[in-house]
């Protein structure tokens, strides 16, 4: 039986309240979103809290941990109970590893890579030009993970401090 799954809703249900947190290098990043207008907009549109942070990813691990410490109802007592989901290796996955959390890489982003390179390269370049997060870099970055895996490297495993 085909079952429609509302994936964003399902995630919100599985991680209710403050257990789901949006950490973006645009919305909520104090150097980019100075007045917090973008963060408020995203929060309103998604119903999910957006972290207001000084340091960008990958360096804002301490701000994320401070957030969960401030909200003990989330049940988070250590970084090994957190998963970071994102499309960037050098920001999202590195943040996860520097925090001692689990990293889940969304390899293809919103638009599948193949489609991105053929259909929407120009439009995404045009879109990114205003706040360059180096689209060329994020694309070539994708190949880094398979390359490093092939060389036998793997992400450092988060461990519970009590084990």
């Amino acid at each position, binding site marked *: 039986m085909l079952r429609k799954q509302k*994936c964003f809703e399902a*995630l919100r249900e599985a991680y209710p309240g403050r*257990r789901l947190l949006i950490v973006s290098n645009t919305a909520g990043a104090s150097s980019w979103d100075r007045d917090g207008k973008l963060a408020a907009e995203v929060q309103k549109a998604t119903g999910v809290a957006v972290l207001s942070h000084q340091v960008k990813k990958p*360096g804002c691990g301490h701000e994320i941990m401070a957030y969960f410490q401030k909200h003990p109802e989330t049940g988070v007592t250590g970084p090994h*109970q957190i998963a970071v*989901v*994102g499309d960037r290796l050098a920001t999202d996955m590195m943040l996860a*590893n520097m925090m001692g959390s689990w990293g889940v890489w969304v390899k293809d982003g919103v638009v599948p890579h193949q489609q991105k390179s053929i259909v929407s390269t120009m439009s995404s370049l045009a879109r990114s030009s205003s706040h360059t997060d180096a689209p060329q870099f994020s694309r070539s970055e994708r190949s880094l993970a*398979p390359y490093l895996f092939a060389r036998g490297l793997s*992400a450092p495993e988060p461990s519970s401090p009590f084990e």
Partner: protein
Amino acid sequence: MNLNLSASVNIFKLLAKPSLCLPHATIATFDNLPVPLDKLFTQSGKKTDIRAVVLDKDDCFAYPESSQVYDAYKVGRQPSYFSSLHRPSVFTCPLEYMDAKETEMFRSFA
């Protein structure tokens, strides 16, 4: 311009330890994310206790620079979690997608 000082500083950490940019699990697109997320790891025999999720926005669940959840992810599609999970070990032809300069750079550091 949205400069990322944090990423620039941490590039040295990454060069010293390239595994810092590697994921523990890989999915193709956001709608392949299983709930609870622990399902991603039980497959490989790892026991996790994930209580909270930190979510990236741009090009993850939203189009870059959009505040909305990408339409298809609101409506969703039939879940195909495990069929589209990529185990790190099955990644193929990594070098073909890397230009010569990058390959050289990471050969010397990896």
